[in-house]
């Protein structure tokens, strides 16, 4: 791994002051460190943000669950408050990586990285999340821009993610048997008035499947999306699954999610 300078920031202000065009924020480091070791990313400065107390913790209000950016996956999966308010979010966190990754990886890191197969971005889309940064609030629908790309500007730091509590929800994924990343993951959330069907792993970026959302908003039953023939032209093809298989998996996982709601 190439040399860099390690900094531990005391607060968000110090963290963003230290940021430059050749720096990265370090939370759990579950993607940042492997990327640097493989030479896929190089930085002059790594700014550790996990010692900023304000960035960790879980708050539940009547209508939303707010999770600090540096909160670890294990803290989300073990939280009684999250389990009670949004059980599907707790089980999503429990299904990320392996125990050692969950002991270290953070929700803010996952979202900032926006891996096309990551689990948390689908939760943000399905649960109409608001991403709180040190500068502004960003709606999830406007946050995820493309493969590994978000609306974050240089030096902008995610502080918390606020999820809207749905009436019902479920996250179902078909994991890669080795990495546990989603080959396809579908997060279905029924809110008052409409239904979100957030899909991860299928395309270059997480998205809300409008066709299934519409069908399920009309009739919240897996029969209303049964046999739906989704357009696979923009879906990923790799050694694990073809685009056509992914299109089929999206419907299968969505049906499973609706049935589990």
């Amino acid at each position, binding site marked *: 791994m190439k040399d860099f300078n*390690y900094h531990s920031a005391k607060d968000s202000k110090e963290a963003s002051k230290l940021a430059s065009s050749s720096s990265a924020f*370090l939370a759990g*480091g579950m993607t940042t460190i492997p990327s640097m070791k493989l030479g896929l990313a190089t930085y002059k400065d790594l700014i550790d943000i996990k010692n900023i107390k304000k960035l960790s913790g879980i708050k539940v209000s009547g209508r939303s669950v707010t999770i600090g950016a540096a909160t670890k996956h294990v803290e989300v999966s073990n939280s009684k408050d999250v389990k009670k308010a949004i059980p599907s979010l707790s089980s999503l966190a429990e299904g990320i990586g392996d125990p050692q990754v969950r002991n270290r990886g953070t929700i803010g890191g996952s979202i900032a990285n926006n891996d096309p197969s990551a689990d948390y971005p689908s939760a943000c889309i399905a649960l109409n999340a608001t991403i709180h940064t040190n500068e502004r609030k960003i709606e999830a629908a406007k946050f995820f821009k493309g493969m590994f790309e978000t609306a974050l500007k240089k030096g902008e730091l995610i502080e918390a993610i606020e999820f809207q509590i749905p009436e019902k929800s479920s996250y179902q994924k078909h994991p890669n048997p080795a990495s546990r990343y989603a080959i396809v993951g579908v997060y279905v959330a029924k809110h008052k008035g409409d239904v979100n069907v957030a899909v991860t792993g299928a395309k270059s970026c997480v998205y809300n499947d409008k066709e299934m959302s519409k069908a399920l908003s009309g009739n919240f039953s897996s029969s209303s999306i049964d046999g739906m023939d989704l357009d696979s032209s923009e879906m990923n093809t790799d050694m694990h699954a073809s685009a056509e298989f992914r299109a089929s998996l999206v419907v299968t996982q969505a049906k499973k999610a609706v049935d589990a709601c």
Partner: protein
Amino acid sequence: MGKISLEVNGRKVEKEAPDNTLLSTFLREHLQLTGTHIGCDTSQCGACVVHVDGNSLKSCTALAADVNGSKVTTIEGLETNGKMHPMQEAFKKLHGLQCGFCTPGMVMSAVDLLQKNKKPSDTEIRDWLEGNICRCTGYQNIVAAVKEAATKM
């Protein structure tokens, strides 16, 4: 360069190390604690698992600077007065290893599991050891060893 202060296996250590030093490198090359193995070096195999402040982590995917001030336990820290830890005893008794390369990480992960779940089921043991890869045993005897250790810990 920065100063790394840790408590490793109950002993306070303080050493200068470059900022890009991984915890696994710090343990093996700076402290000569070579029981922690480097297998894949890409956070998949789990041979490098150690405990930091009571929780298991893959030491090839953490910076030494990143865990500064923590309490670290490695495989060398499990024995007491020359007597093996019950988990090590169980691995030995039930042949939970063949070549032994994955064993330090496997044992450290399993000890963390029993700290959090005193009587895990077979499925819970297998789920927990998802991040530890063994290419010899076929896992059956590892699971049996963890179950045996659960009755002794």
